């Protein structure tokens, strides 16, 4: 086992081990936003993190990037454990890992031009001092993401949402990162613009061998983008699998429910969806978690044991892990799991 891990080390960019993040609210309320999550992301690949609103997707991303201090657990990036305090992380690490936020409106300084917004990471991580050089690098980055050069002198608010998101990606690229965390980068955009942004992301990944931690709630999009898909429910993983496997044989009742709810455009797609499962209720409040399996309140296959005991993660086929009492498989040790 040990050896196995070491071998893989070269390849694994991000390794999240048993991550927990609780928020302590007034009046003693504790929000269990992330409750023991294990994830691994390999170089040049895309890990899709899917879940309903409030399931803890962003919290995982923010733990990784350093915006939140994890309550417990370890995050290993490029083989080195990340310090929970962002201020104590080496500069290089900060540059190697970048984030693109969901809201294109607030992710760039509205008082500065696109170029000025790009200049900061260029200076800080590209080591460039000369204004001419910075200018040229900024234009290069814009070209890279397919934006015209004139945009360098525009203000963020005067360009469209999709273009702004591309500019954010350009900014993220300024420090030559290894990993980009994309927190629902396209959910505020139109499909036509989304397509443009996603295409750009895919091209860049190939060109630069980037790794993406891609957060979304759009399973159709994920199908076309991710190498591996993980489903999150109430801060816990339900199912992880390679993309093809995931969509061809979804196992977890929740996954099935999600997939069956997606409105699709063509008949082919419809045939791919699992049998129509009546979707019921909504995601409970993480401050007031149900006992046992978090999903039992909505599950059509709920058993007695589900109400009292949280199921263990099981490997049902190589690389396909499911966390459900109703599914048979090889139990996995959550503490040291490689998912």
């Amino acid at each position, binding site marked *: 086992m040990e050896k196995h891990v070491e071998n893989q080390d070269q390849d694994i960019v991000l390794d999240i081990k048993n991550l927990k993040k609780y928020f302590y609210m007034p009046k003693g309320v504790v929000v269990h936003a992330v409750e023991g999550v294990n994830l691994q992301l390999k170089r040049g690949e895309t890990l899709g993190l899917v879940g309903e609103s409030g399931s803890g997707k962003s919290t995982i991303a923010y733990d990784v*990037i*350093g*915006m939140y201090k994890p309550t417990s657990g370890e995050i290993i990036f490029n083989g080195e454990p990340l310090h929970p305090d*962002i201020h104590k992380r080496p*500069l290089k690490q*900060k*540059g190697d890992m*970048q*984030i693109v*936020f969901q*809201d294109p409106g*607030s*992710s*760039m*300084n*509205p*008082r*500065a*031009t696109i*170029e000025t*917004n790009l200049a*900061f*990471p260029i200076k*800080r*991580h590209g080591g460039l001092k000369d*204004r*001419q050089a910075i*200018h040229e690098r900024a234009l290069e980055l814009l070209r890279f993401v397919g934006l015209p050069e004139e945009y360098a*002198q*525009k*203000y963020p*608010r*005067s*360009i*469209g949402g999709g273009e702004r998101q591309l500019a954010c990606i350009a*900014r993220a690229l300024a*420090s030559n990162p290894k990993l980009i965390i994309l927190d629902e980068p396209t959910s505020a955009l139109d499909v036509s613009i989304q397509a443009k942004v996603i295409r750009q992301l895919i091209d860049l990944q190939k060109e630069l061998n980037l790794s993406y931690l891609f957060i979304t709630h759009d399973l159709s999009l994920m199908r076309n983008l991710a190498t591996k898909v993980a489903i999150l429910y109430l801060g816990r993983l339900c199912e992880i699998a390679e993309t093809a496997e995931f969509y061809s044989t979804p196992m977890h009742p929740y996954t099935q429910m999600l997939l069956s709810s997606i409105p699709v455009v063509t008949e082919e797609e419809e045939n791919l969806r699992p049998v129509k499962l009546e979707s019921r209720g909504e995601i409970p409040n993480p401050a007031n978690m149900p006992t046992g399996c978090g999903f039992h309140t909505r599950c059509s296959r709920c058993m007695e044991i589900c109400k009292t005991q949280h199921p263990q993660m099981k490997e049902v086929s190589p690389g396909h892990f499911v966390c459900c009492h109703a599914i048979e498989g090889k139990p996995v040790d959550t503490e040291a799991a490689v998912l």
Partner: protein
Amino acid sequence: MEKIQKRPQSVRSLTWKKRWYRFSRNYMSVIGLVIVALVVIMAIFAKWITPYPEHAGAFTDFANANTAPSAAHIFGTDNSGRDIFTRVVFAFRNALKMAVIVLTISVPVGSVLGIIAGIRQGTWIDTVIMRFTDIFLSVPSMILALAIASILKPNMTNAMLAITVSWWPWYCRLTYSTARSISRENYVRYAELTGGSFAHIIFKEILPNCVSPILTKMTLDVGWVIMTGASLSYVGLGEQAPIPALGNMISSGIKYLPDQWWNTIFPALGIIVIILGFNLLGDGVSDLLAVEEE
């Protein structure tokens, strides 16, 4: 080098053109600008445009005291025979001087403290700064200014000091709330995550976004500082004779109501005009500095 210098310039000037257009659409702001420009010009060139500049200093001509407005003295003369128009113009000058000095001290002090507290919200730095500010804000600024000015020797410097002491907390509070909300914006988070220093975050990320509210408030505050100064000088805690100040001109003029009304009315109109000007302009400034929307 030259090339890049030029290009941003032209984009900026285009933006400013657009902003100016937006500003000038509101004719009230334009009126404000005109008033302010006139007042400032009169203040700067007071020596040359007033008919009797010597009347703004140590001068008496009791034979000509209290004459009604006439061609020679368009606002009349006061109880010591001094030309009121001249004195009003010089009073503008002193009032503006006071406002400028008060604001140039209190704005940077207050703003920077507020931003620091806003960024470090929830920490002891926040607590110390904001509680200290609260103490100053717990009493209305003019009362504080009056109390301080009355304890010190009455003169312009001390009046300015007193007003400054009571003024900075407002900027602290203004930038505090702005900084608090901006520091939750993603671009500030991004800068933090990407290794931006504290100074970078204050001066490059947050401050530019506070500039618009600060400048707007500053423009409005020029009027209010002038009013506070006038109130102080009305009760004798500001500029001392023979230096003309709007407040002391009114307070000495009020003794001659209603017959020698010009003693009071013109300085009073002076105050109203100057505050009006800055108020109108202040509204326009926020238009002028509004962020570009698509």
